[in-house]
């Protein structure tokens, strides 16, 4: 057996199946207990846990490599700079971007979208123009556009959804016109789990020469993302939803777009020369990275990408789909339980409601059983309004979840119903 070809989670190379039971042990936080019971963590769409290798990379940075980047000739500063830039190259390969200078480190998806909205939207949008988003966007892909639109007198157009939680493609085409300056779409909905046909939608927008931003927050942990294949103009994601640390994320942008855009914030590191009469901005990517970045975060994200890189991601995606299907089937069989979001193509997320029981109460009771789900509006109030519900309970899976987690949740839902009847 050649150990270098053995994928993580597939300890026995003769069995080419991905084994979530084995990867679990890579995540220290999965072994905590809640209310005396083993944690059943099904809130991965909010944030995932971190493998030991990510935690170690961060500890190693602060213990042995800590220094500022791009500023010193001394040993540690050079080391920190090298590691930081190496992470950028890891992200480049992870997304299959053409160049590493197309990778801008930001705080997360939210900051990435705000950067694009302010810098790109703020430059190209004029009074009477429009931005096209969808009815299933996270607030972070609504509000930043609203802010720029309000400032310049542009409007937001919203692609509607059907009762299954799928975008209406004919409506999308109808919304696009010569005043549409950008389309901003989520890859996978955090509230419904819908996987949008973004590649086709990007092509449709490009046929009309309209650039497209993709919110990849929910996509990066669940399968392969290739920005060249998608041909998206911007792609934003958060490290913490793909096994990396919080406080760091990425905005990918096509080079010619990023080069045409003004800086988002001013400060150190983003300039070539400064005088009181004129400042020359630095080249990409530094033009968009004012101030000391989250160096340890970027290094942690690099370690998370390494971790994912060792896994058979196609098998991970299959495994997760099976869990989502099993959970959907089991919940559908329970009287009084409704699944919200029944798109044909779904990933990661199962949102549900129980007759007569508010999601907040569901969450509290499940927590007594050690089960972590998210309850509420999931920063997607327009989705809740569309379905005419105040909130949902949402279970979301990651590669380390098992069939037992799903069984525990289903037993938990029965328990909830028992408490209330």
């Amino acid at each position, binding site marked *: 057996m050649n150990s270098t070809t053995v994928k993580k989670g597939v300890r026995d190379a003769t069995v080419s199946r991905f084994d979530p039971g084995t990867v679990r042990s890579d995540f220290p936080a999965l072994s905590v207990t809640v209310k005396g019971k083993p944690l059943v963590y099904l809130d991965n769409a909010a944030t995932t846990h971190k493998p030991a290798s990510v935690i170690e990379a961060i500890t190693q940075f602060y213990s042995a490599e800590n220094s500022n980047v791009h500023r010193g000739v001394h040993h540690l500063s050079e080391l920190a700079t090298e590691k930081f830039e190496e992470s950028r190259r890891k992200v480049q390969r992870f997304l299959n971007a053409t160049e590493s200078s197309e990778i801008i480190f930001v705080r997360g998806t939210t900051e990435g979208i705000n950067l694009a909205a302010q810098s790109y939207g703020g430059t190209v949008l004029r009074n009477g123009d429009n931005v096209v988003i969808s009815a299933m966007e996270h607030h972070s892909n609504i509000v930043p556009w609203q802010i720029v639109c309000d400032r310049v007198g542009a409007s937001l157009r919203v692609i509607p959804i059907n009762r299954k939680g799928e975008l209406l493609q004919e409506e999308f085409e109808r919304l696009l016109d010569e005043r549409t300056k950008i389309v901003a779409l989520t890859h996978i909905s955090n509230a419904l789990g819908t996987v949008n046909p973004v590649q086709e939608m990007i092509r449709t927008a490009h046929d009309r020469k309209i650039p497209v931003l993709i919110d990849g927050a929910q996509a990066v942990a669940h399968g392969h993302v290739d920005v060249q294949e998608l041909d998206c103009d911007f792609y934003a994601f958060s490290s913490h939803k793909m096994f990396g640390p919080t406080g760091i994320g990425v905005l990918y942008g096509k080079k010619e777009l990023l080069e045409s855009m003004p800086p988002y914030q001013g400060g150190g590191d983003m300039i070539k020369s400064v005088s009181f009469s004129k400042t020359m901005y630095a080249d990409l990517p530094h033009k968009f990275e004012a101030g000391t970045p989250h160096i340890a975060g970027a290094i942690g994200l690099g370690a998370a990408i390494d971790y994912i890189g060792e896994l058979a991601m196609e098998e991970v995606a299959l495994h997760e789909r099976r869990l989502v299907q099993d959970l959907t089937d089991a919940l559908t069989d329970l009287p009084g339980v409704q699944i919200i979001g029944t798109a044909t193509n779904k990933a990661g997320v199962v949102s549900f409601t129980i007759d*007569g029981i*508010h999601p907040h109460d569901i969450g*509290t009771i499940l927590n007594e059983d050690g089960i972590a789900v998210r309850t509420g509006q999931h920063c997607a109030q327009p989705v809740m309004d569309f379905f005419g519900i105040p*909130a949902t309970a949402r279970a979301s899976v990651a590669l380390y979840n098992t069939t037992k987690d799903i069984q525990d949740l289903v037993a938990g839902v029965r328990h909830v119903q028992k*408490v209330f009847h």
Partner: protein
Amino acid sequence: MSDLRSLYQEIILDHNKNPRNFGVLDDANRVIEGYNPLCGDRYTIYLKLEDDVIQEIKFSGVGCAISKASASVMTTVLKGKTVPEAEAWFEKFHALVTHPSGEDADGASLGKLAAFAGVSEFPARVKCATLAWHSLKGALRSSATSVSTE
């Protein structure tokens, strides 16, 4: 399970299922909306205040069992009370749900409200229990029309 039973007491489950004084009060002279943006709970409290006395009180809206039962029990407790009495009840209730049970809770004087003592063990649910009460306080104090817990 025992923790859960202390939170979801029979009185609470009953008021959640069959809320009292639920609906719109047509001749209200104070109307205030309470909203918790974190979970989306939203209630409207209607008061008919005359000579500093709560002659009528009703509520409408949606939310979890704790917030709905709390609003319902509140209306039953406060009908006929004077404004200073209602404010005193607010203080009592607030102390009950924010202090570890037993410390300040004077079961006998609290009556039905004592059912909410278990809430103090669930810090994430305190806002649910107090939403209607905070709205009420706003309505008593002024003619403001909305109260948010954030």
